């Protein structure tokens, strides 16, 4: 079931942008991820699904190079530009920083003076405009909706003109409409030219039906790669149980797999009985 060579274009394999080879990472005295083989190719859109604490974020950080491999290796194509969008939870929303300052901080400071040049200001305005954040340059990051906050950090990543965009739980804690909005933006970025930018995207999520089932390639992950392929290949009871440690049912609806937790009927019955008594 390990079809890591399968990419969204489907044909001849171009050289991978990022390749994890028997990768293991250790934090303190515990191994967090172990023996991971995973490659990301140009133009791919990969979703990594797994429960909390399964090492998804660690895998992303290893791919970014901010965590060292204890075994195996991560190889990035030479000259590759990778941008990272952190989980919104990790952001300090009380920090005194405006939307413009967040986007601008990732640009290298070319002269001794830190202010933005006019071309830089224009580049920032353009990215913000494109993500629907026009006119918010002076806003404090707390004075935004959840979807806008997510897009500010996306803008900071995009202004670095990345080849690969890595996002940690981009839809955690945001509502359904916002989730759609973010997914559409990502799909635009992923789409090849002339419409899109052809940026390869890797994201983590634990939202199986709302997000994962829509992606071209999914990786079930729990400490290591359990399955890798299209949603219909990967979203199967056997793999899901091994990934999430709980039995799950998979239904088909309009050609798309829908994952249900087993035993949810029983739980509902118990709770409704409680309500009635």
């Amino acid at each position, binding site marked *: 079931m390990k079809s890591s060579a399968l990419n969204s274009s489907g044909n001849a394999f171009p050289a991978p942008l990022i390749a994890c080879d028997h990768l293991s990472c250790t934090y303190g005295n515990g191994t967090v991820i172990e023996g991971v083989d995973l490659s990301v190719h140009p133009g791919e859109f990969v979703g990594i699904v797994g429960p909390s604490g399964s090492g998804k974020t660690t895998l992303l*950080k290893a791919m*970014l*190079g*901010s965590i060292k491999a204890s075994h195996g290796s991560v190889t990035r194509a030479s000259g590759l530009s*990778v*941008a*990272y969008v*952190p989980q*919104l939870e*990790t*952001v*300090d*929303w*009380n*920090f*005194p*920083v*405006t939307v413009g*300052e*967040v986007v*601008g*901080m*990732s*640009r*290298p*400071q070319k002269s*001794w*003076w*830190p202010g933005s040049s006019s071309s830089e200001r224009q580049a920032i305005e353009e990215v913000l405009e494109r993500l629907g954040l026009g006119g918010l340059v*002076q806003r*404090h990051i*707390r*004075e*935004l*909706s*959840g*979807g*806008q*906050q997510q897009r500010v950090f996306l803008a*900071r990543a995009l202004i*670095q003109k990345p080849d690969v965009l890595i996002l940690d739980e981009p839809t955690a*804690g945001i509502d359904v409409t916002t989730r759609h909005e973010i997914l559409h933006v990502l799909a635009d970025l992923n789409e090849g030219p002339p419409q899109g930018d052809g940026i390869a995207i890797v994201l983590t999520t634990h939202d199986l039906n709302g997000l994962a089932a829509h992606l071209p390639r999914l990786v079930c992950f729990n400490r290591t790669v359990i399955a890798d392929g299209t949603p219909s290949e990967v979203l199967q009871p056997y793999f899901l149980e091994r990934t999430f440690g709980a039995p799950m049912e998979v239904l088909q609806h309009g050609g798309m797999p829908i994952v249900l937790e087993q035993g949810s009927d029983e739980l509902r019955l118990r709770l409704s009985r409680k309500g009635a008594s």
Partner: protein
Amino acid sequence: MIFAVDLWKPFTYEFFRNGLLIATLAGALCGLIGVFVVLRGMSYIGHGLSHAVFGGAALAAVLNLSYFLGAGLWGLASGLMIGRVARKRIIGADAAIGVITTASFAMGLALQARFGQAKQSIDAVLFGNVLGVFTGDLLAVAGVGILSVVVVVTLYRKLLFATFDPEVAGVSGVNVPGMEAVLMVLLSATILVTVRVIGVLLISALLVLPAVTARLLTNSFGRMLWLSPVLGAIFGGVGMYVSWYADVPSGAVIILAGTLVFIVVYTAVGVRRRGRVAGMDHHGPSLRAA
């Protein structure tokens, strides 16, 4: 007419003019470095370092060494020891700071009790003594001030990125440990040169007050970075001037002046912010919880 002459009178004394200048400069410097102290949660480190410096200063006075040499080396050694103890992880960094710097402070107190009569300069380090300022102190504060401005301006984006979002900054090619080291060096140097002016017991307040007041007044990092030194300079200058009339140690008046401004701003901004947050509710999208 007599009143106006009276207000001008302290300026006729050279030691007062020197004191006013150094208090203003020290306030501005502490205001600038204080932005990072506040945003990075380093105020306890600042507090600890000033106490460690006191031990070094006392030792230097007893041994007849230069203050900057003794206190500087001692502060450096304490910083390294804190890093070493904290890296063991079993003991948290805050506890490590507590043990090492308080021990250093206790040593300073013991030396002061034993040799205090002869060594008045130890007393100056404890409570600050603006009026006993030498040209050397003035030059030291000005030097560290210029260095800090140059470093903060030229490394502005990296310092901001590493402070706001160290994880992503590291991934984006910013040397985060390097930025942390730069800020530690600037903080140590700031404490070293201003502690004799403000006093060990009050310096951490001057590192925090201008920055938190500026934070209440702006939501922009760039604006906070110039607003905080301006406020620090005002606190220092006004506090120094008032202390002449109040006949109270200048360090105490400087901190009280800063606290008063902070309270006024806090109250005023509190009212305005509540209005703004309430106004936002009309637009629908909820504010994320912290």
